């Protein structure tokens, strides 16, 4: 059977996210409980988490999470990392024997910074890291970079999300923001790297849906050097944000308006400045419009952003209580961990929910996203 990346596998899913906007850290237990409630939305073939704020002692270092299927890939990867990076600390990611987890790969993490002499002219550290991630994934046998951001990490694998969480002892970590994903792929080669969230630098995406525009999105991104090795929507969405916000330097809300573009009939009703902007956005980046059902939670060192496709073909509920914002595919998954939220609502199609950290910026590195104030 071909493995994910060699073949495109559609899937349905459950997603969930929790953030404390003042940056207070809390343990992974809540997110575990929330995603576990939506057990029936997954089928045991993929689950995962992204956690922010979990490595404060190394907050200036890129935290590389790696999976290895054999010793050879590890040797290759480590010699690459030792050559091009200053490695502050490395070691196996702690795990716990869990009954339902079968054949896990070797999981390692490294806290690294690129050696400045290896940066190309006009290349910043982020770009170098992206290049290295693409290199390791493509060239090092059986090695896969699970995450590569600062003060964050992704934990994922084949199994139900609550089992994956238990396996990686997530209750022992403390972060200010968490996302989770439970997957229902229509078939699966059972590869750990193929589980979600998908990450790049400090971006992470959990996503529910299947976008019909994938072929168009993919070919557009490939033009700008992205290698879509997983053939998943999540990967395409991650790269689309990376392209729009990091490479094209567009404000975050303009990037959102590209992926879930307003309808022409609504654009026609806007004031002339906004109309001109959105017309240009659609004319220019139309190929990045994500068409078809999706709900996503985009995590970064800046906070969380949740977004639905413009027709709202996938469910998504949001709630707040104090400094906490909760997001989930089902309201019950929120009430499970926050029985009495102050406010609960179902965001409209194409209308993002944005939770920005009050103390952002410390973690961000060249990635302080701006907003154009499109008044969502």
């Amino acid at each position, binding site marked *: 059977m071909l493995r994910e990346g060699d073949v495109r596998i559609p899937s349905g899913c459950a997603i969930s996210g929790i953030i404390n906007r003042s940056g207070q850290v809390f343990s992974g237990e809540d997110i575990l409980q929330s995603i576990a409630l939506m057990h029936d939305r997954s089928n045991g073939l993929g689950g995962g988490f992204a956690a922010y704020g979990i490595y404060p002692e190394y907050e200036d270092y890129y935290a590389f999470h790696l999976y290895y299927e054999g010793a050879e890939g590890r040797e290759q990867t480590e010699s690459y990392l030792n050559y091009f990076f200053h490695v502050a600390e490395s070691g196996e990611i702690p795990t716990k024997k869990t009954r339902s987890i079968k054949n896990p790969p070797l999981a390692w993490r490294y806290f690294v910074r690129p050696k400045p002499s290896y940066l190309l002219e006009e290349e910043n550290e982020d770009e170098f890291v992206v290049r290295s991630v693409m290199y390791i994934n493509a060239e090092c046998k059986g090695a896969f970079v699970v995450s590569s951001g600062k003060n964050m990490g992704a934990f994922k694998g084949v199994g139900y999300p609550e089992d994956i969480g238990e396996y990686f002892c997530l209750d022992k970590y403390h972060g200010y923001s968490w996302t989770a994903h439970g997957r229902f792929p*229509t078939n699966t080669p059972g590869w750990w790297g193929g589980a979600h969230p998908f990450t790049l630098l400090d971006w992470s995406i959990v996503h529910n849906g299947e976008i019909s525009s994938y*072929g168009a999105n993919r070919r*557009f991104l490939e033009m700008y050097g992205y290698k879509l090795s997983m053939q998943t929507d999540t990967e395409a969405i991650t790269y689309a944000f990376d392209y729009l916000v990091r490479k094209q330097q567009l404000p975050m809300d303009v990037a959102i308006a590209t992926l879930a573009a307003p309808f022409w009939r609504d654009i026609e009703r806007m004031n002339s400045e906004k109309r001109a*902007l959105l017309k240009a956005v659609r*004319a220019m980046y*139309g*190929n990045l*419009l994500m068409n*078809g059902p999706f709900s996503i939670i985009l995590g970064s060192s800046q906070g969380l952003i949740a977004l639905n496709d413009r027709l709202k073909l996938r469910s998504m509920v949001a709630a707040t209580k104090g400094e906490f914002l909760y997001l989930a595919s089902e309201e019950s998954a929120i009430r499970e961990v926050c029985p009495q939220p102050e406010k609960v609502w179902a965001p409209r199609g194409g209308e993002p929910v944005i939770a920005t950290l009050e103390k952002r910026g410390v973690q961000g590195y060249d990635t302080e996203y701006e907003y*154009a104030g499109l008044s969502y």
Partner: protein
Amino acid sequence: MTLSMNTPDFLIERNRERCINCQVCVRQCANEAHGWDAEEEKIFSQDALCVNCHRCVTMCPTHSLSIRKFPLEFRENANWTASTMKAIYKQAETGGILLTGMGTDRPYPVYWDQLLLNASQVTNPSIDPLREPMELKTFLGRKPEQLRVINGKLAEALPPQLELDLPIMFSAMSFGSISLNVAKSLAQAAETLGTFYNTGEGGLHEDLYKYGKNTIVQVASGRFGVHSEYLNAGAAIEIKIGQGAKPGIGGHLPGEKVGVEVSRTRMIPEQSDAISPAPHHDIYSIEDLTQLIFSLKEATNYEKPVIVKIAAVHNVSAIASGIARAGADIIAIDGFRGGTGAAPLRTRDSVGIPIELALAAVDSRLREEGIRNQVSLVVGGSIRNSTDIIKAIALGADAVYVASSALLALGCHMCQKCYTGKCNWGIATQRPELVKRLNPEIGAERATNLLKAWEHEVKEILGGMGINAIESLCGNRLMLRGIGLSDRELNILGVLAAGE
């Protein structure tokens, strides 16, 4: 004069029981295939003059006429077919080049028919176009490398764009090759539909200036009718390098079609043959093209996108990439099945390549070079229905050009005799008595109907794919599967085989 060895192509059959001798057919046939014998008081027909355009058949009030292939058969021979042999008799008689009209009628593969479309099932929902918006708006023109947004505002406007309400335009047909009423019909239809028609290389008749904002004005090697008012009259300018039906040669307008109006519009003497030079004599290389593009932009104050139209030939992807780099805003590619008002038969039937392969190759090439998003791609050359359009866009086109289909909507019956100037349907003719057979209001309505019908079908199929904006289809080759194609062909088209 020696004996002609040519036998008729068609047989005119008249049901004498039904015929009431009204002589409609006599008046309708500009080829004079029907005549009235005053002595015998009876209609007679000359098969040899009939081109099978169905005009008399359609107009006959008692349906007494039918036209058939002339039953005369040569001894069977797979190599020396009837048309091959007849061509030799004709050339032996005249010593001339064989002329023809419309697109090739040879049985070359039509790749559109070997591509199948996708639809959503279970994992993602299809979208109902009656209940949800289905967006076909398309922008054609150069896109910058980056959009700059400052303080929530667009810092620099996009370069000039053509805004289309649906991704279908009427492609170039010159006044001269077609009648003024055809041009009026298409101009009016383009205005109603929110799209564009194209003047072709024949200049712009004064009655058509009012459709300027829906007009693309063409500049071809003959420069007929090109002056600064003309260049500024349209919404975009198209430099015609080549045409799918006759790559490598210029336009042909036989003198018979050059009457007063055509002569004034083209700025050439009446009754003179208007033969465009094969190349533009100021473009012998790619850098010369850059100069022409920018002279035209200078002449129009950089307010209009410039299209460069080429025929699909073997090396089309490299040429297209050069054109994009030369500064064209839009590249139009015309496939070898595309129509024409007049072309040498041998060129039409043997030169160039199918648009499907050319489009796939060009789109892939421009993407490899990372410049596909900077230029727009328009394709034509026998777009016959709404699924051809969807397939073209999925292969990578931004929009399509249609001409033959538009003429069919106005009544053309594909008799391929456009070069004779005796089009019985009032389309490819300048004879006043024939021109008036096409009422431009009715013509506009029929052309509008056709595109509206296609628009509905496109929306229906897009919805089935789970897509509600055309830009999500553009270049989305995952929506296509090939059937009955070789690995090599699938590779060039960049699509998987059905079942994969």
